[in-house]
Each structure stands twice: as C-alpha cells, then as structure tokens.
C-alpha cells in the first residue's frame, strides 16, 4: 500500500478544476455527432416490426431507385458477420430470421438523413411471423423454440471457450456454492423465501450513439461514441476479418455512457457502406431507436431463500436469479455472459453457506447489455428488501439486523471468499450517526407520524480491476504530457490523471497536460467501465510518474530534454467497498405518491483525488438509482417498447431530487493511486431497496418489484387492506 507523501497531499488538496471544463462550457467540446467529413453520407436502417420472424424476401428496387441513395445493403451481403463484445451472436444485418422488434434487416446510405430514412421506408421486406418468446420462463421450457440454433458456431472473444449452458436458450449460467447449505437450513430458527422482480430500464445517456466511418488508403477510420476504443478496434477486426493494424478508432468526449456505450452496433455496417460507396458514412441514432433497439439493463426475477438463527444471524442462503437477456448476448463483455455481478445476491453480509444460481436467458425482447453496476440494482433490491422483511418478521430493528450480519474484514461473504474491503460495522456506525437514525425513528414513533418512515439499504461494489498503460513525455520546455487512450464519458478521467501525475512529480497542475489519442497514438487501454478508471488507469498514470521520477534522478524536468516513459498497472485486486443509505420517505395516504424527504449516503471511497468529480459521481449515482427506484420502466407490450421517447420513459428532473447528505469514509486506503478506491458505481444499486424499505416503514405496504411506483403501493395497500 502506498502512503500519501507530503508533496502529493498538498496538490490533492488543491481545488479541482476540470481540464476539459472550458471546452464543455463554451460549446467547443466536439462529440462524435459534431464531426463531419467532406462528402459524408448518412445511414438509416430497415428494421423488423416483428419480435420473431423469418425474412422471406427483401426487395430493394424502390429504395435503390430513389435520387440521393448511394447504397443499400442487406444481410445477404454482410452474412455471416456478427458482432458482440464477447459472444458474437448479433448479425450485422439479419439474413434469415429477425429476433426482436428493431432488429436490422437492411441499411441505406444516402446524401441526407431524410433521403436515407425515406429509402429505408421504401425497402419492401416480406416476413413470415414466428412464435415469439417474450418471457424468460417460457424460453426455459423444454419444448421452447431455440432462438440461436447455430450458437455453437459463434465466435467467443477474449480467449477461452464459452461456458456450457443447461438449455439452448440460456446465454450464460452460473452456480456457486460454499459451506454446508443443507445443514445451515436445518439448523435455522426460521427460513424465509421471497420473490422479487425488477423492470427493464435504459441507461438514458442524453447523447444518442453516433459513429462515422471512412476509408483512408487501406485504413479504416472510425469516430465513435464507444467508450472502449481499443476493445472496439479488436471487435471490428474480428467481426469484419480485418487486421487491427488497419483500424483506427477515435473516441473523444462521450455524452454519457452508464454502461450502454460499451456496445457498438453501427460501426460494422458503416464500414461496409463506406467500402461500397467510397465515401464517409455516419449514423446518429434517433432517440426512439436508442430506447427501442440498443441494449437495456436486464429485467430480472429473483428468488431468495435465507435461514437465520433466533437473533437473525444468517446461517444459509440460496438464490435463483433469472435475467431477461433479450435477443442477443452481444452487449455483455464478461466471460459468463451474464450481467457482471449476477451472482452477488445478499452482498455485504456474512454468509457461512450459500448456493447461488443465476442465468441470462434469450427471449425475443430488446437485447440487454451492461448498465451502471450490471446485475447489482436487481440483486441489491432483492437482498435488502429480503433483509428488511426478515427483520420485521423476527421483530428486530432493521438497522440492528444488518449490524449483526454485516461483513467485516476476514469474514466469509456470499461468494464464499474472505472479505477484503470496508469494515461494514464502521460504515453502519457512521450511517447511524450521519442519518440521525435513532432520533428520527424515535421522533416518528413519539409523534405517531403516519406516512413517514426510514429505510436502510447497503450495497457493495468491487474496486475496478484490469491492466492499463500510459505514456508520459517530457517536452523540451519541461512540460509533461500524459498520452492516454482513455476517453471521458463524464467521470473526469483526464483531470484524475493530471492530479495524480502532478502530485507525484510535485509540479503545478498546469505543468501536466493530458492528451487523449486515437488507438494509433497511444498504448492499449481497457476502456472506461467496471469502476476501473481511477484504480487501474490512475495507477498506470502513477506508475508512469514514478518511472519518470526514477529517470530524472536529481535533475529538474527542464534539464532532461525530450524524454518518454511508460507506466503500467495491473490491478487484480479482490478489494471491494461498501456504501449505505438511510432514506426518510413520506407516502401520501390517498395517492400513495412517495416523497423522499431526506437521503443520507455514507460511502467508503478511500483517498479522494478529484473532490468535485467524486461528489458528482456519488450524487449522480444516487439520482440514477432513484430514477430506477421510483419511476423508470422501459415498458414492453407484445415485444414492442412502448416508452419510446423521453416524454414517456421518464427520468428524474432537477425538481424531483430530494435533499442529500453524503458522508465519506476515507481512512481505509484502497488499492488505487495514493489509496483511492472506485466511486462510479458505488451509489446507484441500493437506492431501490432503500425506497422500498422506507415505504414499508412509512405505510406498512411492501412492494416486491421495481420501480416502486405510487400506483403499485396503492394497489398493494388496497389488496392488503392496510
């Protein structure tokens, strides 16, 4: 563990001033959709109106005859190319069957967006409708139609082979067991089983995905909103059968990601269009298509079963989690082909024996991919609601039950591994005081405040893992340039790197410039995601600064002339950190509308490098979680997304966010630079359960599904007569 040297702490205490801030507040920051090339064409797609159908014929006659149309391609021409971050199961363009409403059958390149759209509408496709599987349980039936009969032939990127699955409609599956589960249940005073459901939601970054592809000699140039340019380069290479050396990816400012922009679905066909037309081709996604046909967060059904002793101590736990993976698994980058933390049920507790089963299932719904802390909002909602229900039934205060079970360093958690991370007891103690839990609950009891309640929920997130490298160059004038391939989707990565390097070198911030390059200009980088930027890429920046210091010896920067060093970092940590909420909610007795009166978040973040950005990640994470807790629901009827614009898919506005107090735990150093941990996914997952628990405390009604809407509370209160 690195100690924080005196020289560095002084710079870390400097006020943070985002290095790209000026560009972002003056409109100078250029995003992918702002880039144009001479002679650029525009792409539009022909998409399936059916959730499952055979493509009988595609007639391009009318479309090709339209003035201004430069190319029309169908799946017949791109066959058998498929895309996918791990499993390449998504055809660039479908050639035999379409698997969801919005699946692409053909693409047009034309002089204007309008002509392209009109030509796409003029493509005549004949379909033969097939029975659609809209429910994961139906997909798992023994006789269910197999949606991907050719799955065995799909490429599986990143080395290794695809894990076997128990049913052909399963994308990914896992079972993990530790301890003697049967004995644990047998010894239990009580065993509780609850079933929870979580709605499909969308990342709702406000920048629709955009990409521009053109050919320059034998090289393919790509401008994109993808947040992992090197991974995209590899992905393009595999899917298109073109060496990586011929592909250059440029991913600059990204207008929000929240996990969704790891998957690219346009760049592949844009390459083909650029190839046949000889012109640059751009695609900017219509927001309605963002909501209907990209990659959502997985809807889920979660069954938890837990045995406890008379004091509420957990003795055994089993769970079964079924994620609706939609038509393609292409959005999932992880080897298991499930949302990243699919197996983490009952996270944050000491669990002596557990058997956890999770799976993602193919259906004819919009594909699901990664979304901020994949798998965790679903599991945290279930687990923290489950804990509250157990506490209630045992007559134990919900806070006390958590204190009895919360994981402490060295304890075995639900994964069966010893816990390396936050001392849960210290975190809960801080939450108890910061939220004035005792005063508040006593106050509510004493005044008999009907309709007001306090809800508690905790959450866990691993500190980011992976490998990265950074190049530092010293210029003749003694300035330091950090060259990186990390694009910034909003987290403030470049400012983090600047502060780390300046701190380690003991030079003013202005002396360190951060230069983001294309995949040609900088060393390989794993991309933004998985809470990785500060601990991994930040550690690479620190390693580079240390290497530079070593090369400098006693010399000053101004004395060495041009010099280049590389810093590398490999974080394979098992470290995790913890956070917890106390929410005070008020439920209107007639309408059942929930008003969060106050929220307290305590988060273990280790050393703070970017105070403003950290605050933004936590506050923004809370509101992101709040949207998914109380309103967000990407509703699907008969396979069609019916919340197809931001007027119908509602996300919180500034007038919908409650007062929030954030308290930080910073004393326990993490594996990141100077003891930093991660923050980007450290706040959103537990909000759903905190709301559900607060609602239950406020009005006695338990909602077992997300989002916790006014109508659900109303319906449940009528059913239960409470």
């Amino acid at each position, binding site marked *: 563990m690195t100690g924080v040297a005196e020289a560095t702490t002084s710079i870390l205490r400097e006020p943070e001033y985002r290095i790209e801030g000026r560009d972002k507040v003056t409109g100078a920051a250029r995003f992918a959709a702002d880039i144009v090339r001479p002679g650029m064409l525009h792409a539009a797609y022909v998409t399936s*109106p*059916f959730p499952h159908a055979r493509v009988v014929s595609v007639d391009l006659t009318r479309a090709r005859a339209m003035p201004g149309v430069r190319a029309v391609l169908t799946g017949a021409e791109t066959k058998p190319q498929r895309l996918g971050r791990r499993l390449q199961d998504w055809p660039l363009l479908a050639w035999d069957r379409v698997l969801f409403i919005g699946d692409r059958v053909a693409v047009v390149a034309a002089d204007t967006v309008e002509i392209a759209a009109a030509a796409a509408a003029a493509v005549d496709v004949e379909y033969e*409708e097939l029975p659609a599987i809209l429910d994961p349980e139906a997909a798992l039936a023994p006789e269910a139609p197999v949606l991907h009969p050719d799955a065995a032939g799909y490429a599986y990127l990143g080395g290794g082979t695809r894990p076997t699955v128990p049913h052909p409609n399963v994308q990914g599956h896992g079972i993990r067991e530790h301890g003697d589960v049967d004995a644990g249940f047998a010894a239990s005073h009580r065993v509780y089983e609850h079933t929870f459901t979580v709605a499909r939601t969308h990342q709702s970054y406000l920048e629709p995905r955009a990409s521009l592809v053109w050919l320059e000699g034998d090289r393919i140039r790509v401008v994109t909103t993808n947040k992992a340019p090197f991974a995209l380069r590899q992905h393009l290479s595999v899917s298109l059968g073109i060496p990586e050396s011929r592909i250059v990816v440029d991913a600059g400012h990204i207008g929000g990601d929240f996990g969704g922009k790891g998957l690219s679905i346009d760049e592949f066909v844009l390459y083909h269009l650029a190839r046949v037309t000889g012109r640059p081709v751009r695609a900017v996604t219509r927001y*309605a298509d963002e909501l209907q046909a990209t990659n959502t967060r997985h809807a889920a059904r979660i069954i938890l079963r837990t045995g406890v002793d008379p004091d509420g101590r957990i003795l055994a736990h089993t769970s079964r989690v079924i994620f609706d993976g939609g038509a393609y698994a292409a959005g999932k980058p992880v080897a298991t082909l499930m949302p990243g933390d699919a197996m983490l049920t009952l996270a944050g507790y000491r669990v002596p024996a557990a058997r956890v089963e999770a799976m993602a299932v193919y259906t004819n719904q919009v594909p699901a991919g990664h979304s901020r802390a994949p798998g965790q909002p679903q599991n945290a909602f279930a687990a923290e609601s489950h804990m509250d229900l157990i506490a209630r039934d045992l007559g134990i205060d919900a806070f006390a039950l958590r204190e009895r079970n919360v994981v402490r360093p060295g304890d075995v958690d639900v994964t069966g591994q010893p816990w390396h991370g936050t001392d849960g007891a210290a975190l809960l103690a801080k939450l108890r005081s910061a939220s004035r839990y005792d005063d508040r609950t006593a106050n509510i009891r004493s005044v008999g405040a009907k309709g007001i309640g306090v809800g508690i929920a905790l959450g866990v997130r691993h500190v980011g893992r992976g490998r990265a490298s950074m190049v530092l160059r010293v210029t003749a004038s003694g300035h330091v340039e950090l060259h990186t391939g990390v694009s910034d989707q909003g987290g403030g990565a470049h400012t983090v790197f600047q502060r780390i390097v300046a701190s380690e070198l003991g030079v003013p911030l202005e002396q360190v410039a951060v230069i983001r390059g294309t995949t040609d200009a900088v060393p390989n980088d794993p991309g933004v995601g998985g809470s990785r930027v500060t601990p991994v890429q930040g550690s690479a920046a620190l390693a580079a600064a240390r290497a530079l210091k070593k090369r400098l010896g006693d010399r000053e920067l101004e004395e060495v002339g041009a010099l280049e060093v590389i810093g590398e970092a490999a974080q394979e940590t098992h470290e995790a950190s913890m956070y917890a909420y106390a929410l005070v909610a008020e439920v209107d007795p007639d309408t059942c509308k929930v008003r969060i009166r106050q929220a307290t978040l305590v988060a273990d973040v280790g050393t703070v490098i970017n105070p403003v950005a950290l605050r933004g990640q936590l506050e923004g994470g809370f509101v992101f979680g709040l949207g998914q807790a109380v309103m967000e629901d990407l509703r699907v*009827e*008969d396979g*069609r997304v*019916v919340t*197809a*614009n931001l007027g119908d898919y509602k996300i919180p506005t500034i007038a919908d966010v409650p007062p929030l107090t954030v308290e930080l735990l910073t004393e326990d150093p993490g594996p990141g630079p100077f003891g930093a941990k991660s923050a980007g996914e450290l706040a959103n997952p537990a909000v759903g359960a905190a709301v559900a628990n607060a609602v239950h405390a406020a009005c006695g009604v338990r909602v077992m599904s997300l989002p916790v809407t006014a109508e659900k509370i109303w319906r449940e209160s009528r059913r239960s007569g409470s």
Partner: protein
Amino acid sequence: MKFTHTATVAASRDRVWAKLMDIPAAARCVPGVASVRAAGSDKYLGTLAVQVGPVRLVLDGDLVVTARDEKAGTASVKADAKDSRVGGAIRATMALHLSEKEDETELRIATDLAVMGRIGEFGQAVIKRKADQLMQDFADCLARQVMR
C-alpha cells in the same frame, strides 16, 4: 393488444353467418373501410382510413379468411395493412364465434392487434381506444344489418 367484442342480434345463427361471410358487405360495416374486393378465394383487398385528430392513416392491405367452420359457427380472419406514407402497419387476427341462444345470436369477436412502425410510436393507449371503438362499431353495425 387484445380485445373482445360482442353483439347480440335478434336473428338466427344461419342468417348472421351468411351476413358475416359476405366479406365485402361485412367489411363495409367497419367505419372508414373503402373498396373491398375479392382477390382469389377467401382473400380480399381493401383500404381502411382512420383519423385521430390531425393524424390520418390510409391503411392498404388484405384480409384472408384463414379458417371457417359453419357447423361450429367459428371463423378466423387475418388482416394485414400498411400505410406507406407514415411508414407503419397493422396486423390483426380475429376469431369470430357465433352462438345461438333462443331467438338470438351472439357474435363474439376476439381480436389480437399489432401496430407496427411509426404508427406505433403514437400513443398506444389512444390507438387501442380507437381500435376498440372500430371493432365495437363493426359488431353493432353488423347486428343492425342482419335485422334489416
């Protein structure tokens, strides 16, 4: 979206069946239907104009009787139509069922309607209401015509 509509007609089942199976005549009972004509056995071409406020849809398509069983009083009809200007389409399957009770015949129509493309982006609830009205008007009109 699924609907069920019923209408009761003071006529024998045979009379209602005959009326129902005269597709061009029966189809004209749907408000906004124009120019229904036969195109082979059990297949018909036609146009349906629907207006919701300023939005005017002209749906061109076909209607196929996919099954009929006079003895059981059941028939299935499938309709496919699209509006090429707006860029959207509908597909409806209708299960018709006649049952005779004393002097009356009950017509029951179970409809499964899919609204696709751009049309579907217009409020689904309003479309559903409109379709619901259309089918009820059809059932009522048919009842009136048989009694005439």
